[in-house]
């Protein structure tokens, strides 16, 4: 049975929406084990979501409609990005051409902006601290993302993620080329940072020093909070998709439109995501966090790798 491209596209979105909490829960479980705890149940994020959706929404007195619109806008942004990236298939789907890696980055940034705006709207100092930090550090990591994109553009002459994945699959020489290795490591560092792990953020706790993303959602409650939690799990999975299916291991994707091939691609991808999540949890738990203002050092390293990737390409040896 063959699926229509539109159906596959919908399935990509559905995969991200449905499995994002599972991956988050799995990582939290593994992390608990690493720290000598039993860890929460793997399905815990789903229970949390159900609980939050059942609760009432409280809005701070001075907040306007932006406070409630922010989470919805962010969530819809996270629904758009999976249309642009290779979640399940190794061939481009029709809507895959509406935006490149940069467009995906912009939409993710728009989501971040919406959350930050909703947080600032409350007037709560913690929420403002969180959004101010998130915006500042987002701007600092941006050059590395840009240079990774440039590297991809030079390797494939386009910056559509599907083509980079195809290039990686095409031969061994594409994998060992220094430009690719460096860009992968740089992007890996970016994802580590953006999923709130290394270098300064503690992504689960409410300690002020390490609060960035968690702080932004402090004032939200009920369904809006559920959307934010769900959204941040989806953002994490989206970044994993780009890291895994574009850069590290673009294998195991569906090569045809048949139902079986597409369906089998889902568990393969989730397994890969668990693998990467496990790696992230290990890294997160084996390094101490940096002081907040040392974050520039980390950004400098990611930037250095991305710049070197571009340089060796220009030299003709990448």
């Amino acid at each position, binding site marked *: 049975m063959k699926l229509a491209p539109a159906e596959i596209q919908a399935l990509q979105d559905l995969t991200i929406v449905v499995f994002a909490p599972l991956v988050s829960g799995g990582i939290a479980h593994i992390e608990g084990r690493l720290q000598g705890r039993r860890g929460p149940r793997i399905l815990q994020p789903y229970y949390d979501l159900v609980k939050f959706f059942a609760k009432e929404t409280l809005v701070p007195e001075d907040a306007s409609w932006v406070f409630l619109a922010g989470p919805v806008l962010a969530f819809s942004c996270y629904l758009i990005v999976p249309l642009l990236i290779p979640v399940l298939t190794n061939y481009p789907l029709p809507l895959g051409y509406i935006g490149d890696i940069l467009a995906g980055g912009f939409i993710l940034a728009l989501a971040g902006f919406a959350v930050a705006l909703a947080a600032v709207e409350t007037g709560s100092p913690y929420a403002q601290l969180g959004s101010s930090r998130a915006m500042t550090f987002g701007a600092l990591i941006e050059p590395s993302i840009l240079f990774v994109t440039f590297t991809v553009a030079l390797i494939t002459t386009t910056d559509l993620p599907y083509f980079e994945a195809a290039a990686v699959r095409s031969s061994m020489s594409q994998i060992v*080329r220094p430009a690719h290795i460096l860009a992968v490591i740089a992007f890996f560092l970016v994802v580590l940072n953006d999923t709130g792990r290394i270098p300064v953020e503690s992504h689960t706790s409410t300690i002020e020093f390490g609060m960035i993303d968690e702080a932004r959602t402090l004032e939200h409650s009920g369904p809006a909070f559920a959307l934010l939690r769900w959204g941040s799990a989806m953002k994490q999975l989206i970044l994993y998709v780009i890291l895994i299916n574009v850069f590290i291991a673009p294998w195991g994707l569906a090569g045809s439109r048949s139902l079986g091939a597409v369906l089998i691609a889902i568990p393969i991808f989730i397994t890969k995501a668990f693998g990467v999540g496990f790696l992230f949890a290990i890294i997160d738990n084996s390094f101490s966090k940096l002081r907040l203002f040392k974050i*520039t050092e980390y950004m400098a390293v990611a930037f*250095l790798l991305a710049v070197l990737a571009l340089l060796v390409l220009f030299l003709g040896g990448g």
Partner: protein
Amino acid sequence: MLASTHVPSVFTGSADAVALVVLLSEFAMLRAPLLRSQIRLYSFQSFAVTGLAVIVAATRNLNELFIIAGFSFVLKVVLVPGIIMRLLRDSRVDLVGSHRLGVASMVLLAIVISVFGIFVVGSLPIHSQSLPTPALGLAMAIILVSFLLVILRSDVVSQAVGFFSLENGVSVASLVVAAGLPLIVEVAFLFDLLVAVVVFGVLMRVHHNRTKTLSTSVLDRLRG
């Protein structure tokens, strides 16, 4: 674009990657706060250079290079770091706050310098038969960044390590342009390093005995 049509072969790609590892460890030395970790990084960097020599020797059938690689392994990976480590242990100093600039600004400065080096060499019409040409640009970048290491870190160990890693950069460059150099010349280069080790060893000892520290910033006060 040039880059998209030209995909490097597995040999070229991996050789370039090793040269990059050498450059990256140079950057890491620039950052490393512990003197011990700096020496370990030097040892690691020398190991990468040795690996590069082995790759070139194996793929280009230059048997003499195996001997050089062996020498360089014994000297630069084991012996020299061992000696410096021992001197350091005697002086019982681990940490010298010797960064003259913030880490991020140092790295950015080093990026600018290496870009300069890479582009300058890239514009020269030098082509090599034994190693991919980009490695030469990277070697230049390694040399320039190690200059930066010597300039920006004000402690004796960093300056010694900077000087030794300068030699590593030169080794990479010589592997690129003259892999078939006569054995005796290469060995002479390597033993030059030993002389440098002795000089720096004496310098470290004397400096530490006089000032009880490894920082060179106290030397600024020695004005006539």
